[in-house]
Protein backbone atom coordinates (compact mmCIF):
# COMPACT_ATOMS: atom_id res chain seq x y z
CA UNK A 1 0.00 0.00 0.00
CA UNK A 2 1.47 3.31 -1.11
CA UNK A 3 1.05 6.49 0.87
CA UNK A 4 3.92 8.81 0.01
CA UNK A 5 4.31 10.09 -3.51
CA UNK A 6 7.80 9.72 -4.88
CA UNK A 7 9.54 8.59 -8.04
CA UNK A 8 10.39 5.23 -6.45
CA UNK A 9 6.78 4.61 -5.40
CA UNK A 10 5.55 5.59 -8.83
CA UNK A 11 7.97 3.16 -10.46
CA UNK A 12 7.00 0.36 -8.05
CA UNK A 13 3.31 0.97 -8.64
CA UNK A 14 3.86 0.90 -12.38
CA UNK A 15 5.09 -2.70 -12.04
CA UNK A 16 2.08 -3.58 -9.85
CA UNK A 17 -0.42 -2.16 -12.34
CA UNK A 18 -1.13 0.82 -10.05
CA UNK A 19 -3.28 -1.31 -7.75
CA UNK A 20 -1.57 -0.11 -4.54
CA UNK A 21 -2.75 3.49 -4.49
CA UNK A 22 -5.35 4.22 -1.86
CA UNK A 23 -7.81 7.12 -1.48
CA UNK A 24 -5.87 10.28 -0.72
CA UNK A 25 -7.94 11.19 2.31
CA UNK A 26 -10.17 9.41 4.80
CA UNK A 27 -13.92 10.13 4.49
CA UNK A 28 -14.73 10.37 8.20
CA UNK A 29 -17.89 9.84 10.24
CA UNK A 30 -18.49 12.57 12.84
CA UNK A 31 -17.54 11.88 16.46
CA UNK A 32 -19.52 13.36 19.35
CA UNK A 33 -17.00 16.08 20.14
CA UNK A 34 -13.85 17.77 18.84
CA UNK A 35 -11.42 20.37 20.15
CA UNK A 36 -11.87 22.46 17.03
CA UNK A 37 -14.46 22.31 14.27
CA UNK A 38 -13.88 24.14 10.99
CA UNK A 39 -17.08 24.85 9.07
CA UNK A 40 -16.30 24.80 5.36
CA UNK A 41 -14.28 22.18 3.49
CA UNK A 42 -12.80 24.51 0.94
CA UNK A 43 -9.15 25.32 0.51
CA UNK A 44 -9.10 27.79 3.43
CA UNK A 45 -10.84 25.40 5.83
CA UNK A 46 -8.65 22.43 4.92
CA UNK A 47 -5.48 24.54 5.07
CA UNK A 48 -6.54 25.75 8.53
CA UNK A 49 -7.05 22.17 9.71
CA UNK A 50 -3.69 21.12 8.27
CA UNK A 51 -1.71 23.90 9.97
CA UNK A 52 -3.62 23.38 13.24
CA UNK A 53 -2.48 19.77 13.28
CA UNK A 54 0.99 20.31 11.82
CA UNK A 55 2.23 23.48 13.52
CA UNK A 56 0.00 23.93 16.54
CA UNK A 57 -0.32 20.28 17.55
CA UNK A 58 -4.11 20.24 17.91
CA UNK A 59 -5.26 16.64 17.57
CA UNK A 60 -9.05 16.46 17.59
CA UNK A 61 -10.07 18.51 14.55
CA UNK A 62 -13.02 18.14 12.19
CA UNK A 63 -13.71 19.90 8.90
CA UNK A 64 -17.41 19.96 8.03
CA UNK A 65 -18.41 20.40 4.40
CA UNK A 66 -22.02 20.64 3.24
CA UNK A 67 -21.27 19.22 -0.21
CA UNK A 68 -18.00 17.64 -1.31
CA UNK A 69 -14.68 19.26 -0.47
CA UNK A 70 -13.67 21.97 -2.89
CA UNK A 71 -17.17 22.24 -4.35
CA UNK A 72 -17.50 25.94 -3.51
CA UNK A 73 -15.17 28.77 -4.42
CA UNK A 74 -12.07 26.56 -4.13
CA UNK A 75 -13.12 24.93 -7.38
CA UNK A 76 -14.57 28.04 -9.01
CA UNK A 77 -11.73 30.57 -9.13
CA UNK A 78 -9.26 31.54 -11.85
CA UNK A 79 -6.29 30.04 -9.91
CA UNK A 80 -4.08 33.13 -9.86
CA UNK A 81 -1.45 33.56 -7.14
CA UNK A 82 0.34 36.90 -6.65
CA UNK A 83 1.39 39.38 -3.98
CA UNK A 84 1.22 42.75 -5.76
CA UNK A 85 -0.73 44.64 -3.12
CA UNK A 86 -0.30 48.29 -2.14
CA UNK A 87 -1.52 48.68 1.44
CA UNK A 88 0.69 47.63 4.37
CA UNK A 89 -1.43 44.92 6.02
CA UNK A 90 -2.02 43.25 2.65
CA UNK A 91 1.48 43.44 1.15
CA UNK A 92 3.33 41.34 3.76
CA UNK A 93 0.37 39.00 4.24
CA UNK A 94 0.04 38.08 0.57
CA UNK A 95 3.84 37.85 0.19
CA UNK A 96 3.88 35.38 3.08
CA UNK A 97 1.20 33.46 1.23
CA UNK A 98 3.23 33.47 -2.00
CA UNK A 99 6.27 32.16 -0.11
CA UNK A 100 4.13 29.33 1.26
CA UNK A 101 2.94 28.61 -2.29
CA UNK A 102 6.57 28.37 -3.39
CA UNK A 103 7.18 25.52 -0.95
CA UNK A 104 3.72 24.00 -0.94
CA UNK A 105 4.35 20.93 -3.06
CA UNK A 106 7.24 19.79 -0.87
CA UNK A 107 5.27 20.68 2.26
CA UNK A 108 2.25 18.62 1.24
CA UNK A 109 4.02 15.96 -0.86
CA UNK A 110 1.39 16.71 -3.50
CA UNK A 111 1.62 18.18 -6.97
CA UNK A 112 -0.36 21.41 -6.71
CA UNK A 113 1.06 22.49 -10.08
CA UNK A 114 2.32 25.85 -8.82
CA UNK A 115 3.55 27.61 -11.94
CA UNK A 116 5.41 30.88 -11.43
CA UNK A 117 4.85 32.20 -14.91
CA UNK A 118 4.54 35.83 -13.81
CA UNK A 119 1.78 38.39 -13.95
CA UNK A 120 1.61 41.66 -15.85
CA UNK A 121 -0.83 44.50 -15.20
CA UNK A 122 -1.09 46.62 -18.34
CA UNK A 123 -1.20 50.39 -17.99
CA UNK A 124 -2.96 52.59 -20.50
CA UNK A 125 -2.36 56.15 -19.25
CA UNK A 126 0.32 58.23 -17.55
CA UNK A 127 -1.70 58.32 -14.35
CA UNK A 128 -2.06 54.57 -14.34
CA UNK A 129 1.68 54.13 -14.87
CA UNK A 130 2.29 56.42 -11.89
CA UNK A 131 -0.13 54.36 -9.79
CA UNK A 132 1.67 51.14 -10.79
CA UNK A 133 5.05 52.70 -10.04
CA UNK A 134 3.77 53.53 -6.58
CA UNK A 135 2.43 50.03 -6.08
CA UNK A 136 5.65 48.48 -7.38
CA UNK A 137 7.69 50.64 -5.01
CA UNK A 138 5.48 49.63 -2.08
CA UNK A 139 6.10 46.00 -3.00
CA UNK A 140 9.87 46.47 -3.29
CA UNK A 141 9.94 48.15 0.13
CA UNK A 142 8.56 44.86 1.44
CA UNK A 143 11.23 42.90 -0.44
CA UNK A 144 8.86 41.68 -3.15
CA UNK A 145 9.88 41.47 -6.79
CA UNK A 146 8.21 44.15 -8.93
CA UNK A 147 9.28 45.67 -12.19
CA UNK A 148 7.85 48.56 -14.18
CA UNK A 149 8.12 47.42 -17.79
CA UNK A 150 7.87 49.50 -20.97
CA UNK A 151 5.93 48.91 -24.16
CA UNK A 152 8.86 47.21 -25.91
CA UNK A 153 9.01 44.63 -23.14
CA UNK A 154 5.26 44.07 -23.53
CA UNK A 155 5.61 43.76 -27.33
CA UNK A 156 8.25 41.06 -26.94
CA UNK A 157 6.36 39.16 -24.23
CA UNK A 158 2.82 39.49 -25.54
CA UNK A 159 3.00 40.28 -29.29
CA UNK A 160 -0.65 39.37 -29.84
CA UNK A 161 -2.10 42.32 -27.89
CA UNK A 162 -3.81 45.18 -29.68
CA UNK A 163 -1.08 47.83 -29.74
CA UNK A 164 -3.04 50.02 -32.18
CA UNK A 165 -5.93 50.52 -29.76
CA UNK A 166 -6.55 54.29 -29.82
CA UNK A 167 -8.85 54.28 -26.83
CA UNK A 168 -6.71 52.16 -24.50
CA UNK A 169 -3.14 52.54 -25.79
CA UNK A 170 -0.76 50.16 -24.01
CA UNK A 171 2.00 52.15 -22.35
CA UNK A 172 3.70 49.43 -20.34
CA UNK A 173 2.90 47.49 -17.23
CA UNK A 174 3.75 46.26 -13.77
CA UNK A 175 5.39 42.83 -13.77
CA UNK A 176 5.71 40.39 -10.89
CA UNK A 177 7.73 37.40 -12.08
CA UNK A 178 7.11 35.19 -9.04
CA UNK A 179 3.34 35.34 -9.45
CA UNK A 180 1.53 32.70 -11.45
CA UNK A 181 -1.10 30.02 -11.14
CA UNK A 182 -1.75 26.81 -9.21
CA UNK A 183 -4.12 23.92 -9.78
CA UNK A 184 -7.06 24.76 -7.50
CA UNK A 185 -8.49 21.25 -7.10
CA UNK A 186 -5.05 19.84 -6.36
CA UNK A 187 -4.65 22.43 -3.60
CA UNK A 188 -7.85 21.18 -1.99
CA UNK A 189 -6.88 17.53 -2.38
CA UNK A 190 -3.32 18.16 -1.23
CA UNK A 191 -4.39 19.90 1.97
CA UNK A 192 -7.12 17.30 2.56
CA UNK A 193 -4.63 14.44 2.18
CA UNK A 194 -2.03 16.08 4.40
CA UNK A 195 -4.59 17.01 7.07
CA UNK A 196 -6.23 13.60 6.98
CA UNK A 197 -2.89 11.85 7.43
CA UNK A 198 -2.38 13.96 10.59
CA UNK A 199 -5.70 12.67 11.97
CA UNK A 200 -8.08 15.45 10.90
CA UNK A 201 -11.64 14.20 10.29
CA UNK A 202 -12.94 15.46 6.94
CA UNK A 203 -16.71 15.05 6.97
CA UNK A 204 -18.53 15.61 3.68
CA UNK A 205 -22.27 16.06 3.11
CA UNK A 206 -22.50 17.49 6.61
CA UNK A 207 -24.33 20.81 6.52
CA UNK A 208 -24.39 22.99 9.61
CA UNK A 209 -28.05 23.74 10.36
CA UNK A 210 -27.66 25.46 13.72
CA UNK A 211 -25.37 26.09 16.67
CA UNK A 212 -25.35 24.77 20.22
CA UNK A 213 -24.91 27.76 22.46
CA UNK A 214 -25.09 28.61 26.12
CA UNK A 215 -25.58 32.32 26.58
CA UNK A 216 -22.75 34.05 24.75
CA UNK A 217 -20.71 30.85 24.34
CA UNK A 218 -20.83 28.61 21.28
CA UNK A 219 -20.48 24.96 22.33
CA UNK A 220 -20.85 23.15 19.02
CA UNK A 221 -22.91 22.75 15.90
CA UNK A 222 -26.10 21.04 14.81
CA UNK A 223 -25.64 19.36 11.47
CA UNK A 224 -27.45 17.19 8.96
CA UNK A 225 -25.50 14.31 10.58
CA UNK A 226 -26.43 15.20 14.15
CA UNK A 227 -25.03 17.33 16.95
CA UNK A 228 -21.27 17.77 17.27
CA UNK A 229 -19.75 19.51 20.28
CA UNK A 230 -16.58 21.54 20.04
CA UNK A 231 -14.25 23.61 22.16
CA UNK A 232 -13.97 26.12 19.36
CA UNK A 233 -15.81 26.61 16.07
CA UNK A 234 -14.12 28.36 13.15
CA UNK A 235 -16.14 29.59 10.19
CA UNK A 236 -14.40 29.38 6.80
CA UNK A 237 -17.53 29.28 4.68
CA UNK A 238 -16.94 32.15 2.18
CA UNK A 239 -20.25 33.18 0.58
CA UNK A 240 -22.29 31.23 3.14
CA UNK A 241 -20.76 32.97 6.16
CA UNK A 242 -23.68 35.39 6.60
CA UNK A 243 -26.22 32.55 6.52
CA UNK A 244 -24.31 30.77 9.30
CA UNK A 245 -23.83 33.89 11.41
CA UNK A 246 -27.52 34.77 11.01
CA UNK A 247 -28.31 31.52 12.89
CA UNK A 248 -26.56 33.17 15.85
CA UNK A 249 -28.14 36.57 15.31
CA UNK A 250 -24.76 37.96 14.28
CA UNK A 251 -24.68 40.56 11.49
CA UNK A 252 -21.46 40.87 9.50
CA UNK A 253 -19.99 43.56 7.21
CA UNK A 254 -20.33 41.16 4.29
CA UNK A 255 -22.53 40.89 1.21
CA UNK A 256 -22.64 37.74 -0.91
CA UNK A 257 -22.18 38.40 -4.62
CA UNK A 258 -21.87 36.20 -7.68
CA UNK A 259 -18.65 36.25 -9.70
CA UNK A 260 -18.48 34.41 -13.00
CA UNK A 261 -15.44 32.75 -14.49
CA UNK A 262 -14.90 31.28 -17.92
CA UNK A 263 -12.80 28.84 -19.86
CA UNK A 264 -12.36 28.65 -23.61
CA UNK A 265 -11.69 25.64 -25.80
CA UNK A 266 -8.09 24.42 -25.71
CA UNK A 267 -5.62 26.38 -27.83
CA UNK A 268 -1.94 25.95 -28.61
CA UNK A 269 0.31 27.83 -26.15
CA UNK A 270 -0.54 31.52 -26.55
CA UNK A 271 -0.44 33.44 -23.28
CA UNK A 272 2.86 32.86 -21.44
CA UNK A 273 1.91 34.59 -18.17
CA UNK A 274 -1.10 35.94 -16.30
CA UNK A 275 -2.41 39.02 -18.07
CA UNK A 276 -4.48 41.81 -16.54
CA UNK A 277 -6.13 44.41 -18.77
CA UNK A 278 -5.80 47.77 -17.03
CA UNK A 279 -8.56 49.72 -18.76
CA UNK A 280 -11.37 47.26 -18.24
CA UNK A 281 -11.64 44.46 -15.73
CA UNK A 282 -10.33 41.35 -17.43
CA UNK A 283 -7.76 38.78 -16.31
CA UNK A 284 -6.64 35.73 -18.23
CA UNK A 285 -4.16 32.90 -18.08
CA UNK A 286 -3.80 29.71 -20.09
CA UNK A 287 -4.19 26.41 -18.33
CA UNK A 288 -1.84 23.50 -18.98
CA UNK A 289 -4.64 21.86 -20.97
CA UNK A 290 -4.66 24.91 -23.25
CA UNK A 291 -7.94 26.54 -22.25
CA UNK A 292 -7.95 30.25 -21.59
CA UNK A 293 -9.17 30.77 -18.03
CA UNK A 294 -10.55 34.26 -17.58
CA UNK A 295 -12.86 36.48 -15.60
CA UNK A 296 -13.91 40.03 -14.96
CA UNK A 297 -16.34 41.98 -12.82
CA UNK A 298 -18.94 40.75 -10.39
CA UNK A 299 -22.50 40.68 -11.69
CA UNK A 300 -23.05 43.37 -9.07
CA UNK A 301 -26.09 42.25 -7.09
CA UNK A 302 -26.47 40.09 -3.97
CA UNK A 303 -26.67 36.44 -4.92
CA UNK A 304 -26.38 32.94 -3.51
CA UNK A 305 -27.21 31.32 -6.84
CA UNK A 306 -23.72 30.16 -7.99
CA UNK A 307 -24.68 31.29 -11.49
CA UNK A 308 -24.75 34.69 -13.13
CA UNK A 309 -26.43 36.51 -15.98
CA UNK A 310 -25.60 36.88 -19.66
CA UNK A 311 -24.91 40.66 -19.79
CA UNK A 312 -21.91 40.07 -17.54
CA UNK A 313 -20.65 37.30 -19.83
CA UNK A 314 -20.91 39.72 -22.74
CA UNK A 315 -19.16 42.48 -20.80
CA UNK A 316 -16.23 40.26 -19.80
CA UNK A 317 -15.80 38.92 -23.35
CA UNK A 318 -15.91 42.48 -24.75
CA UNK A 319 -13.14 43.50 -22.35
CA UNK A 320 -11.08 40.52 -23.48
CA UNK A 321 -11.56 41.29 -27.16
CA UNK A 322 -10.66 44.95 -26.59
CA UNK A 323 -7.14 43.88 -25.63
CA UNK A 324 -6.76 40.57 -27.54
CA UNK A 325 -8.78 40.94 -30.77
CA UNK A 326 -7.40 37.64 -32.11
CA UNK A 327 -9.62 35.77 -29.62
CA UNK A 328 -12.66 36.72 -31.71
CA UNK A 329 -13.07 33.23 -33.19
CA UNK A 330 -12.29 31.33 -29.99
CA UNK A 331 -15.26 29.50 -28.54
CA UNK A 332 -16.28 29.75 -24.92
CA UNK A 333 -16.39 26.28 -23.44
CA UNK A 334 -17.80 26.77 -19.96
CA UNK A 335 -18.79 29.49 -17.54
CA UNK A 336 -19.76 29.21 -13.91
CA UNK A 337 -20.46 31.34 -10.87
CA UNK A 338 -19.22 31.38 -7.31
CA UNK A 339 -20.65 33.14 -4.26
CA UNK A 340 -18.14 35.70 -2.99
CA UNK A 341 -18.09 36.99 0.58
CA UNK A 342 -17.60 40.64 -0.35
CA UNK A 343 -16.53 42.68 2.64
CA UNK A 344 -17.25 46.38 2.99
CA UNK A 345 -13.64 47.47 2.37
CA UNK A 346 -12.53 44.66 0.06
CA UNK A 347 -10.21 43.08 2.63
CA UNK A 348 -10.65 39.92 4.69
CA UNK A 349 -11.54 39.33 8.33
CA UNK A 350 -9.61 36.81 10.47
CA UNK A 351 -10.76 37.47 14.00
CA UNK A 352 -12.63 36.46 17.10
CA UNK A 353 -16.35 37.28 17.23
CA UNK A 354 -18.54 38.77 19.98
CA UNK A 355 -19.48 35.17 20.86
CA UNK A 356 -17.12 32.98 22.88
CA UNK A 357 -15.77 29.94 21.06
CA UNK A 358 -16.67 31.31 17.61
CA UNK A 359 -13.97 32.47 15.19
CA UNK A 360 -14.29 34.03 11.79
CA UNK A 361 -12.31 33.71 8.57
CA UNK A 362 -14.27 35.53 5.87
CA UNK A 363 -14.56 38.53 3.58
CA UNK A 364 -12.05 37.28 1.00
CA UNK A 365 -14.02 38.98 -1.77
CA UNK A 366 -12.75 37.48 -5.00
CA UNK A 367 -9.12 37.27 -3.97
CA UNK A 368 -9.30 34.28 -1.68
CA UNK A 369 -7.51 31.64 -3.72
CA UNK A 370 -4.04 33.22 -3.60
CA UNK A 371 -4.46 33.72 0.14
CA UNK A 372 -5.16 30.04 0.87
CA UNK A 373 -1.91 29.02 2.63
CA UNK A 374 -1.50 32.22 4.67
CA UNK A 375 -5.19 32.36 5.50
CA UNK A 376 -5.07 28.79 6.78
CA UNK A 377 -1.94 29.35 8.81
CA UNK A 378 -3.09 32.64 10.37
CA UNK A 379 -6.55 31.26 11.15
CA UNK A 380 -4.96 28.18 12.71
CA UNK A 381 -2.80 30.48 14.85
CA UNK A 382 -5.87 32.41 15.99
CA UNK A 383 -7.81 29.24 16.80
CA UNK A 384 -4.93 27.56 18.63
CA UNK A 385 -3.49 30.53 20.53
CA UNK A 386 -6.58 32.69 20.85
CA UNK A 387 -4.60 35.67 19.61
CA UNK A 388 -4.12 36.93 16.05
CA UNK A 389 -1.09 35.99 13.98
CA UNK A 390 1.13 39.06 13.58
CA UNK A 391 0.54 39.14 9.82
CA UNK A 392 -3.24 39.08 10.20
CA UNK A 393 -3.64 41.35 13.22
CA UNK A 394 -5.13 44.14 11.10
CA UNK A 395 -7.87 41.92 9.65
CA UNK A 396 -10.12 42.76 12.57
CA UNK A 397 -13.89 42.58 12.67
CA UNK A 398 -14.14 45.84 14.60
CA UNK A 399 -12.16 47.89 12.06
CA UNK A 400 -15.40 49.07 10.45
CA UNK A 401 -16.38 50.75 13.72
CA UNK A 402 -12.92 52.12 14.52
CA UNK A 403 -12.25 53.40 11.00
CA UNK A 404 -9.13 51.31 10.32
CA UNK A 405 -10.37 50.16 6.92
CA UNK A 406 -8.10 48.42 4.40
CA UNK A 407 -9.57 49.63 1.13
CA UNK A 408 -7.18 48.79 -1.75
CA UNK A 409 -9.44 50.29 -4.39
CA UNK A 410 -10.63 53.23 -2.32
CA UNK A 411 -14.30 52.86 -3.22
CA UNK A 412 -15.83 52.79 0.26
CA UNK A 413 -18.62 50.59 1.54
CA UNK A 414 -19.68 49.41 -1.92
CA UNK A 415 -19.05 45.66 -1.93
CA UNK A 416 -20.01 45.28 -5.60
CA UNK A 417 -17.19 47.63 -6.63
CA UNK A 418 -14.29 46.02 -4.73
Amino acid at each position, binding site marked *: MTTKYSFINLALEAFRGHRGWKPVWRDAIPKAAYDIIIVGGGAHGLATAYYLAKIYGVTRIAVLEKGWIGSGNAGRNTTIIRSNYLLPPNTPFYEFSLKLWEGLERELNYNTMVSQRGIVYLCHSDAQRDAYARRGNAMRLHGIDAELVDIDWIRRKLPFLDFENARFPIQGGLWQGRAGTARHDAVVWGYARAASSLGVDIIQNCEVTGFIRHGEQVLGVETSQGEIRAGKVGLAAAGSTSTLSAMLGL*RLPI*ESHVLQAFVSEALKPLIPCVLIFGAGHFYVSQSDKGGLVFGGDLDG*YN*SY*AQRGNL*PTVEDVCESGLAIIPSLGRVRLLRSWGGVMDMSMDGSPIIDRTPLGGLYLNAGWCYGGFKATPASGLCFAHLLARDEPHELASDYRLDR*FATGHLIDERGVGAQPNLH
Partner: protein
Amino acid sequence: MRIQCPFCGERGFDEFLYLGDGGFVRPDATEPQAQARFVEAVYFRDNPAGPHVELWYHESGCHSWLRVIRDTRTHEILAVAFAHELSHR
Protein backbone atom coordinates in the same frame (compact mmCIF):
# COMPACT_ATOMS: atom_id res chain seq x y z
CA MET B 1 -32.56 38.69 -15.02
CA ARG B 2 -35.26 41.17 -16.07
CA ILE B 3 -36.85 43.84 -13.92
CA GLN B 4 -40.42 45.07 -14.47
CA CYS B 5 -39.94 48.84 -14.23
CA PRO B 6 -43.31 50.41 -13.26
CA PHE B 7 -42.71 53.21 -15.79
CA CYS B 8 -40.76 51.63 -18.68
CA GLY B 9 -41.92 48.02 -18.56
CA GLU B 10 -39.75 44.90 -18.46
CA ARG B 11 -36.05 45.59 -19.06
CA GLY B 12 -32.78 43.67 -18.73
CA PHE B 13 -30.92 44.19 -15.47
CA ASP B 14 -27.95 45.75 -17.27
CA GLU B 15 -30.07 48.89 -17.74
CA PHE B 16 -30.05 49.34 -13.99
CA LEU B 17 -27.51 50.30 -11.32
CA TYR B 18 -27.58 48.36 -8.08
CA LEU B 19 -27.33 50.08 -4.72
CA GLY B 20 -28.03 47.14 -2.43
CA ASP B 21 -29.91 46.73 0.84
CA GLY B 22 -33.15 48.71 0.57
CA GLY B 23 -33.72 48.59 4.31
CA PHE B 24 -31.19 51.39 4.82
CA VAL B 25 -32.51 54.11 7.13
CA ARG B 26 -30.29 57.11 7.74
CA PRO B 27 -29.82 57.41 11.51
CA ASP B 28 -30.54 60.64 13.36
CA ALA B 29 -27.13 62.30 13.75
CA THR B 30 -28.19 64.09 16.93
CA GLU B 31 -29.10 61.05 18.99
CA PRO B 32 -26.58 59.89 21.61
CA GLN B 33 -25.91 56.50 19.96
CA ALA B 34 -25.55 58.07 16.50
CA GLN B 35 -22.01 56.84 15.82
CA ALA B 36 -22.81 53.21 16.53
CA ARG B 37 -26.01 53.50 14.50
CA PHE B 38 -24.11 54.90 11.52
CA VAL B 39 -21.60 52.03 11.68
CA GLU B 40 -24.53 49.64 11.71
CA ALA B 41 -26.30 51.40 8.84
CA VAL B 42 -23.24 51.82 6.59
CA TYR B 43 -21.37 48.54 7.10
CA PHE B 44 -23.73 45.94 8.53
CA ARG B 45 -26.42 45.06 6.05
CA ASP B 46 -28.92 42.29 5.62
CA ASN B 47 -27.43 39.52 3.48
CA PRO B 48 -30.17 36.88 3.34
CA ALA B 49 -30.26 33.76 1.18
CA GLY B 50 -33.84 34.31 0.03
CA PRO B 51 -36.08 37.35 -0.50
CA HIS B 52 -33.98 40.53 -0.32
CA VAL B 53 -35.26 44.10 -0.30
CA GLU B 54 -32.97 46.22 -2.47
CA LEU B 55 -32.69 49.49 -4.38
CA TRP B 56 -32.07 49.68 -8.13
CA TYR B 57 -31.69 52.83 -10.25
CA HIS B 58 -33.01 52.74 -13.83
CA GLU B 59 -29.99 54.47 -15.33
CA SER B 60 -30.63 53.65 -19.00
CA GLY B 61 -34.37 54.26 -18.68
CA CYS B 62 -36.60 56.56 -16.69
CA HIS B 63 -34.01 57.37 -13.98
CA SER B 64 -36.35 56.16 -11.26
CA TRP B 65 -35.19 54.61 -8.03
CA LEU B 66 -36.93 51.29 -7.58
CA ARG B 67 -37.46 49.16 -4.52
CA VAL B 68 -37.18 45.55 -5.65
CA ILE B 69 -37.78 42.37 -3.69
CA ARG B 70 -35.70 39.61 -5.27
CA ASP B 71 -34.84 36.08 -4.22
CA THR B 72 -31.05 35.89 -3.97
CA ARG B 73 -31.10 32.08 -4.40
CA THR B 74 -32.95 32.07 -7.74
CA HIS B 75 -32.74 35.72 -8.96
CA GLU B 76 -36.55 35.71 -9.23
CA ILE B 77 -38.03 39.22 -8.98
CA LEU B 78 -40.90 39.09 -6.48
CA ALA B 79 -42.03 42.74 -6.38
CA VAL B 80 -41.08 46.12 -7.86
CA ALA B 81 -42.27 49.58 -6.85
CA PHE B 82 -41.09 53.17 -7.07
CA ALA B 83 -38.92 53.84 -4.03
CA HIS B 84 -40.27 57.38 -3.57
CA GLU B 85 -43.87 56.19 -3.28
CA LEU B 86 -42.89 53.79 -0.51
CA SER B 87 -40.81 56.38 1.33
CA HIS B 88 -43.82 58.75 1.53
CA ARG B 89 -45.93 56.24 3.40
